Each structure stands twice: as structure tokens, then as C-alpha cells.
């Protein structure tokens, strides 16, 4: 598997440019026959959430800062990374929401971005420090994907049929 040359898109850290990032990512993803439309939508939403966070991270820092989006295409995957120079955060200690059945849930308008990202893409990793954050999203393109693996039942995991 060779990683193909990369597309880089650098935008001002401003809300109005997130749509452009979505456009670029979904255009690249649409070029991949192996990626179903539904998964393109998933990647687009995940990238949009990560970009929104990157832009918001700069609100407290410097409005002239920029967000860098890199898209690398390989035979079997699309990798999108979103880098900001915001203050950083710890993705493993985010507050949890009350359960959706709790009336108190309505007090939380935020905090859905990262849970969405985690659900939508095949792999996500965060690299965050006080110098900034880099979020790396991976979407596999091959027909036989992650989903199939997850759908394995315990029976499938039993001893192979040697017949």
C-alpha cells in the first residue's frame, strides 16, 4: 500500500470556510469508486466537525491563525488530517452528557462533535498539545471493510470449518 501525494488546503480559522473544506473532501472522496455515498457523507461530517473544533480553538487565540487540512489518498484508504494552533485539549477526558432520557439533557447544546467523529470514521487519532491539535481521520475504501469485521458473530469466530 503506497500513500499517494497529498492535497493540502489551508484556510483562515473562520467559520465561513468550513463549507469549502467539506467540498474539497467530498470531491476527493467521490473520486473513489470503492467508497459508498453514505460513507462519503460520514467522512464529510467528521471532517466538518474536526474543522469546526479547529476554528473554534483559535477564537481564544488569534483570529489570524490558520487551519491546515491534508488529504492523502492510498489504494485502500483516505486519510484526512486537520491541524490547528489552538491551545490543545485532552480528548480522553471530555465531560459526558446526561443520558438522552434525562430532561437535564436539554441543557447541553454542545459536546456532540467528537462522539460523532468517533462513530463516523474507521479510525481517529488526536495529537494535542499546548502548541496545537492535529486530528487524523481514516476511512477505508475497500469493499471488505471494518464493518464486515464488526458484523462477525461469535459463530463466525468459532473454529474454522476444515471440511
Amino acid at each position, binding site marked *: 500500500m503506497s500513500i499517494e501525494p497529498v492535497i493540502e488546503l489551508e484556510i483562515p480559522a473562520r467559520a465561513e470556510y468550513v*463549507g469549502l473544506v*467539506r467540498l474539497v473532501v467530498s470531491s476527493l472522496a467521490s473520486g473513489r469508486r470503492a467508497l459508498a455515498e453514505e460513507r462519503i457523507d460520514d467522512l464529510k461530517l467528521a471532517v466538518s466537525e474536526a474543522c469546526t473544533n479547529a476554528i473554534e480553538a483559535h477564537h481564544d487565540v488569534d483570529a489570524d491563525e490558520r487551519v491546515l487540512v491534508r488529504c492523502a489518498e492510498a489504494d485502500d484508504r483516505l486519510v484526512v488530517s486537520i491541524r490547528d494552533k489552538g491551545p490543545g485539549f485532552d480528548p480522553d477526558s471530555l465531560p459526558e452528557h446526561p443520558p438522552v432520557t434525562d430532561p437535564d439533557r*436539554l441543557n447541553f*447544546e454542545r459536546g456532540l462533535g467528537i462522539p460523532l467523529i468517533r462513530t463516523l470514521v474507521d479510525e481517529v487519532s488526536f495529537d494535542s498539545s499546548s502548541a496545537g491539535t492535529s486530528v487524523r481521520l481514516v476511512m477505508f475504501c475497500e469493499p471488505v471493510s471494518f464493518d464486515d469485521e464488526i458484523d462477525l458473530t461469535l459463530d463466525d469466530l468459532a473454529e474454522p470449518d476444515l471440511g
Partner: protein
Amino acid sequence: MELGLDVEEQDGTTVLAVRGEVDVYTAPRLREKLVELVSQGKYKIVVNLEGVDFLDSTGLGVLVGGLKRLRSHDGDLTLVCTQPRILKVFEITGLTKVFAIHDTVEAAVAG
């Protein structure tokens, strides 16, 4: 990026039809519109998402905020949505349990 917001009254219910992409850039306009409607005493609101091409967590947050606001007036905010890719965002986040989601404006207005 344009966000279309059309308001219509139907049988005592306010129907807000949203068109376009709801994201961090456009969601503030949706929020303002909801606040405006509530301040006009519209406490039964149906948000029609059938014309929405994209909805992210910022948009979800605005809808949650709107629902909260309306509930505090003993009102309600319900949704019209049949598009799988938009429904999916509500499903993943568990918000299908928070919002009443209808297939048609008629069903939503009938409550």
C-alpha cells in the same frame, strides 16, 4: 453559503422550513430565527429539515436549545425529516429519543 429559512403558519403551528447547509457558519441564523419566533409567542414550532443538505453538531445544538426554550414555555419543537443521512446524525447522537421526528409536515402539525 446560503441558509434558507421560510416561516409559515399551519393550524396554529409555526412551520419553519430550513434549506441548505446547517453548520458552524449558518447555525447562528437558525438560532436567531428560533429565538425570534419564541419572542413572538410562537410556542408550537415544527422545523422542516427536508430541504437540508447537511447538518452538523452545531445544528443539533441549536435544535436542542430551541426545544429547551419552547419546553420552558410549555411549547414544543418537533421535526420533519425522512432523509437517511440527516436522520443518521440524530440516531448516532441518541437525539431521536429527544425529538419527535415526523415523516411529513402534516403529521408534525397534527402532532
